[in-house]
């Protein structure tokens, strides 16, 4: 297996930090980019195409296909925020978010959706963003779809996904195929642990290598502690080397001076950096309205083997339950079929001792559906707020209120009905007081009575959005429609924290498309040159 990162390093990529050598004391560049995920990668390719001198700073390590051994025990501490143990303040929501070169794109499950029309309409109407229309964004989506090989997935879905289609069809609910950003995918199913065959067109193997080949510099295992702000300008960044667990590796900091700074550390981390830096926030919006697509899970047992670990994850979906009510009505949800690996399943299914043994004895025959709740479109769905712990690390406070949890109950019902329609022997809503139910009638009655409360209901998230909302007027957002901060002239934000609401679909393509639009404009402003992504 050819490892493009190993080859790039051998070609002389300028990488420092961790095992790649000490961070320099000072650096000067045209543009400093914080992060290396979806927004940062696209931005780096476009800015280097314009001939700009770019430095990227990543808190996590540089890992690549030779390290990706399909092992959860290796992947979670190395590639995920807080060792995949990131949680909201009251511990009621577990958050999976990448922290490595490539960010979440290195570990995501490849699901690619354009920003839904209804979401864009809401942004135009409520956040004064007339430019956020399907037609205006289409060329940007086309460009990144071509760049990242985002195409229909033509291989047969694995059994775990096929059951979603089967159960939904028997209820007259349409399910459709999910596009994926892969090239020559082996259909292994281990996307969440880093792609071992470099088929996934993550930032790690696409935009970042191009930027590094053009001379961009990359600092890894390096955390941006502060933006150095003077008046209405950002003068530079203060960076600290960190160990793999995020603890400081030394007190010797690096100072980066830059004409322009792009923050793309991902939602939660980006607003936290601005909070640590005491960035102006005249309207008290910074870190607010952070959304998660809170996820609830329903596990079903079948007579036959499902082997949910095998084959591409999340290849089918249904938006039926997003469309039954208006977008600003009762909270809707998208249904998908996730990959099932032992560690994540054992951590997600409820119970211990005999209950846990019995559930996991059927691991190979387990099918699971998840429901992503579309948060942020209703007054009673304000999302969460990013705060800082005493050590400066971010903590998201996201209270799960009755409005959101009402959606969780309806989602448990929808998933159980689909699973029984597909032939499930038993269905278990992932809740501490639920039992495996043997029929739809029994499940319907029981789910109606379950106390759907935080810490009793298992809630997860793999999509973190918002906290530095983009808006067409200063009192509605942190960032202007061109991605620049409303109060800090040479600071841009190019990541999922820009979204004024959740997306209502897996967000990677929304980040790519928006970052392509913003970075192309920024490249022109800083260099006078018109650029586009490699074809």
């Amino acid at each position, binding site marked *: 297996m050819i490892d493009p990162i190993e080859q790039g390093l051998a070609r002389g990529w300028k990488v420092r930090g961790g095992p790649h050598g000490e961070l320099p004391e000072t650096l000067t560049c045209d543009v400093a980019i914080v992060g290396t995920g979806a927004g940062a990668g696209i931005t780096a390719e476009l800015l280097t195409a314009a001939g700009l001198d770019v430095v990227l700073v990543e808190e996590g390590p540089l890992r690549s296909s030779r390290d990706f051994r*399909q092992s*959860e025990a290796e992947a979670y501490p190395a590639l995920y925020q807080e*060792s995949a143990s990131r949680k909201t303040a*009251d511990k009621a929501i577990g958050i999976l978010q990448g922290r490595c070169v490539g960010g979440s794109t290195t570990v995501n499950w490849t699901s690619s959706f354009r920003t839904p029309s209804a979401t864009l309409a809401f942004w135009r109407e409520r956040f004064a963003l007339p430019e956020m229309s399907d037609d205006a964004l289409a060329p940007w989506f086309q460009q990144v779809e071509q760049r990242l090989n985002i195409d229909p997935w033509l291989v047969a879905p694995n059994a775990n996904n096929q059951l979603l289609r089967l159960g939904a069809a028997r209820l007259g609910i349409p399910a459709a195929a999910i596009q994926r950003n892969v090239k020559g995918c082996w259909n*292994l199913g281990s996307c969440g642990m880093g792609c071992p065959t470099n088929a996934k067109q993550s930032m790690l193997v696409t935009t970042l290598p191009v930027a590094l080949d053009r001379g961009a510099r990359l600092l890894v295992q390096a955390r941006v502690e502060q933006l150095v702000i003077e008046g209405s300008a950002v003068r530079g960044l203060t960076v600290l080397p960190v160990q793999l667990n995020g603890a400081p590796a030394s007190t010797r900091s690096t100072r980066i001076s830059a004409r322009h700074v792009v923050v793309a550390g991902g939602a939660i981390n980006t607003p936290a950096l601005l909070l640590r830096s005491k960035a102006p926030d005249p309207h008290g919006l910074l870190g607010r309205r952070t959304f998660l697509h809170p996820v609830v899970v329903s596990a079903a047992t079948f007579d036959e083997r499902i082997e949910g670990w095998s084959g591409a994850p999340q290849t089918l979906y249904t938006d039926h339950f997003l469309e039954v009510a208006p977008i600003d009505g009762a909270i809707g949800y998208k249904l998908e079929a996730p990959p099932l690996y*032992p560690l994540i399943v*054992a951590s997600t299914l409820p119970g211990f001792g005999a209950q*846990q043994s019995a559930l996991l004895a059927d*691991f190979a025959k387990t099918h699971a559906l998840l429901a992503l709740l579309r948060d942020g479109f209703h007054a009673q769905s304000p999302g969460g707020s990013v705060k800082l712990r005493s050590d400066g690390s971010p903590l998201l406070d996201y209270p799960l209120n009755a409005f959101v949890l009402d959606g969780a109950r309806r989602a448990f019902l929808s998933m159980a009905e689909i699973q029984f329609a597909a032939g499930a022997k038993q269905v278990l809503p992932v809740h501490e007081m639920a039992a495996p139910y043997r029929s739809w009638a029994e499940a319907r009655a029981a789910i109606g009575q379950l106390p759907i409360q935080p810490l009793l209901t298992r809630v997860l998230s793999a999509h973190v959005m918002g906290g530095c909302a983009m808006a067409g007027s200063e009192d509605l957002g942190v960032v202007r429609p061109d991605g620049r901060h409303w109060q800090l002239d040479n600071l841009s934000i190019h990541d999922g924290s820009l979204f004024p609401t959740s997306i209502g679909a897996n967000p990677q393509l929304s980040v790519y498309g928006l970052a392509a639009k913003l970075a192309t404009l920024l490249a022109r402003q800083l260099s006078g040159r018109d650029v586009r992504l490699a074809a």
Partner: protein
Amino acid sequence: MQRRRLLQVGTLTAALLGSAGAGLALLRPGVRDGRFTAEARLVFAAVAAAVLDGMLPRDTAPRAAALRAHLDRMDTTFAGLPPALQAEVGELATLLATAPTRLALTGLGAAWHEAPVADVQTMLQRLRLSSLALRQQVYHALRDLTNAAWFADPGAWPGIGYPGPLKVGTP
């Protein structure tokens, strides 16, 4: 307010020491030099016996070896956590390794290494369904740390029918 009281370093210890009528001098550290102490290993061994009941080997010698390896993996898990989470888990280990605070937090009367598995399971179930968010958080922390360390080991996979990753050779 109590429903959403958070597991925060310091405040929890102070509150529990107060309710247990005990002082700081009594505390038995749960973590030393980045590893769980002998006292904390007794806590997590008892929790493992309860959470992994039905999965741990039954015979004495293989069971002891499996628990030892499990506790070593817990040290590895702990080392991977960021400092803020290490502080929380360390505080939890300290409170559970210290008799008066163990009793105040969990209601478990017997010392960990003397408590029957069924008693530890009863205690876990009480925490799990407690009306106090704090006790529910403790339940999830204990269960999740235990499962994370146990299922990280390929040795645990045959027991749940997982064959391990597919081989990736040269295409």
